[in-house]
């Protein structure tokens, strides 16, 4: 039985794992880099160990150092979170070798899932439909170009070690392909230290729909419904929801059965995700398996009532699944907005720095998984996801309006965020009606709508803003030349 879990990760996902462990009475071991002394996961864990410099390669990707902490802290299991070492089969194998329970699939299964080509081959064999593309890895840009011309542009260049929007580029002609090949290669090497590229047909007006897979060590497998993750920018998910507006009970069951087959085809154990593209004609194509807990798992927790981290730990402990497919019932509607530190108007460029103040929304059926607290810092060394804001409702509309209220309540000082963008998206008729596609932002001119919304918001607040300015000007006239930020310790007596 797992009694002490080392979490080989940081940020909100480390906190997520700690939360369940606490509830189960399992001890937790946090690891942290120079950049993370003052981070929440260090504060919440039972124990915390320093593992190196800020750059991921020197800390969160340093397998030897993490192993050393596992052994010295007496952890009997490791949770890899997502990103970093979560889909690194060498690391999973290292854990297996040292009899540390890796909470995830076996190293062999992970290796098979991670090799996008072998995985695709396994799916074809199991009669799970996949997207047309290169039959295997392409060794250079010219070979990629040749295949692209065979299957027809647009195509996707994907590093088989990529993920989360990195190591992937959409290219529409030979010139873009040549440039993109280099970028994908270097991004992948920078993120995980290696790269290998495949070419895939890019389907237009597609929806990204993924299924939660769940399989134990006794061969029991279920799917825990789908998530639609079509609202994206640069192939990175922004908003997810479940159920998908285009998946009815019959479709859910039909694709769900394929998902169980997919899990069996790669001998997958623990929780994972099978990603599909849904073409505009309603066909589903398997893309890949994410061999880890997904960023967007909370919305599936909300509609299933299950604690996925608990389920992961139970499976890792060798317990059989406590339910069968027919016991799982989908309850209500959930939405997740990924609150990123990025500037929507600067082509989603990262925005980093200290966060002096933050307001986290709360309330019934609002869940916010975040590492933010007043006084924390958004580091340029790690990814831009600051918070996952999720809402649930018995109807989609209740879930949507609850999300809008929560987005209005959320405030993060010091960095640009994607909050205003999401308010605009959630207010469009297209989003309300479920007309989703992976090019949603471009298709419906969302950035222009955002600009108009922001202006309108300022107009609505103008009287209040002027009132605040009047009071400031009247009372602080003498200080008008200097920044008020430095005068933080005096207080004006009003009457």
């Amino acid at each position: 039985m797992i009694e002490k879990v080392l979490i080989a990760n940081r940020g909100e996902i480390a906190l997520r794992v700690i939360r369940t462990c606490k509830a189960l009475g399992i001890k937790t071991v946090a690891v942290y880099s120079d950049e993370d002394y003052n981070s929440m996961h260090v504060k919440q864990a039972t124990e915390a160990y320093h593992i190196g410099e800020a750059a991921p390669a020197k800390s969160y990707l340093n397998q030897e150092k993490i192993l050393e902490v596992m052994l010295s802290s007496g952890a009997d299991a490791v949770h890899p979170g997502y990103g970093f070492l979560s889909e690194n089969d060498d690391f999973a194998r290292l854990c297996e070798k040292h009899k540390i329970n890796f909470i995830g699939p076996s190293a062999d299964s992970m290796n098979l899932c991670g090799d996008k080509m072998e995985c695709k081959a396994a799916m074809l064999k199991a009669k799970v439909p996949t997207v047309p593309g290169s039959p295997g890895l392409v060794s250079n840009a010219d070979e990629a170009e040749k295949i692209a011309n065979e299957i027809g542009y647009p195509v996707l260049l994907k590093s088989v070690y990529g993920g989360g929007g990195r190591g992937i580029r959409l290219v529409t002609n030979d010139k873009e392909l040549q440039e993109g090949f280099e970028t994908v290669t270097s991004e992948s090497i920078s993120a995980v230290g290696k790269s290998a590229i495949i070419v895939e047909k890019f389907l237009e007006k597609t929806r990204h729909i993924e299924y939660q897979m769940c399989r134990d060590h006794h061969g029991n497998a279920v799917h825990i419904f789908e998530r639609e993750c079509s609202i994206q920018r640069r192939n990175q998910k922004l908003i997810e929801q479940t159920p998908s507006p285009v998946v009815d009970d019959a479709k859910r069951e039909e694709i769900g059965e394929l998902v169980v087959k997919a899990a069996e085809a790669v001998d997958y154990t623990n929780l994972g995700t099978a990603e599909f593209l849904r073409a505009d004609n309603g066909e589903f194509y398997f893309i890949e398996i994410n061999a880890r807990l997904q960023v967007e798992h909370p919305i599936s927790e909300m509609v299933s009532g299950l604690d996925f981290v608990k389920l992961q730990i139970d499976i890792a402990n060798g317990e059989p699944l406590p339910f069968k497919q027919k016991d799982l019932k989908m309850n209500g509607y959930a939405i997740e907005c990924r609150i990123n530190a990025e500037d929507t108007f600067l082509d989603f460029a990262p925005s980093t720095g200290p966060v002096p103040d933050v307001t986290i929304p709360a309330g019934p059926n609002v869940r916010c998984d975040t590492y933010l607290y007043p006084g924390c810092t958004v580091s340029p060394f790690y990814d831009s996801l600051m918070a996952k804001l999720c809402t649930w409702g018995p109807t989609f509309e209740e879930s949507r309006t609850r999300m809008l209220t929560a987005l209005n309540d959320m405030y993060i000082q010091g960095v640009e965020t994607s909050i205003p963008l999401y308010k605009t998206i959630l207010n469009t008729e297209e989003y309300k009606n479920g007309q989703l596609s992976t090019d949603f932002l471009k298709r419906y001119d969302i950035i222009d709508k955002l600009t108009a919304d922001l202006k309108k918001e300022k107009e609505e607040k103008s009287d209040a803003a002027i009132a605040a300015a009047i009071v400031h000007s009247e009372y602080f006239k003498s200080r008008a030349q200097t920044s008020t930020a430095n005068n933080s310790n005096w207080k004006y007596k009003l009457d």
Partner: protein
Amino acid sequence: MNYKIQDIEKSFDGKIVENLGNNDYVIKINDNEHNLKIITMDSKGIEFILDNKYHKAKYLEQSTNEMNIVIDNVPITLNLHTHFDEIVYKNSGGGGTGNAQLALKSQIPGKVVSLAVAEGDTVKKGDVVCTLESMKMQVAVKSHKDGVIKTIKIKETATVAKGDIIAEIE
């Protein structure tokens, strides 16, 4: 005092008309009077009720003519000036720097992955000048105008902060 709110084409005249005591005031914005009750106030911010509606503002920073506040979670930049200031401002061509600007500045912090130009190169607006990496994303910094690269202020593998000058383009 006269105020402008950035991105809104309207100017606002605002003043305190009367102090009613007990933190209650009458203020006037353009031609309308409003009741204002201050709940809490210090140099960092104010909480107040304006015509029976609560608001909360943070004062972020202020220079002679500009004030950045966050009102009810909405960031707003106010330009402050007397009417005389406004005339001077308009006549100086203030605000529109546009094509005249020499320096290409980084809008994000990051590590320089690669330089795409050398000093003396001719660039067109939109050409890639360098590539930065931040939060595991690679972002191309593009020229803001047509011109010739006069000086390059950064090196490969170096770290740049937001607002740092990358190159000067004439």
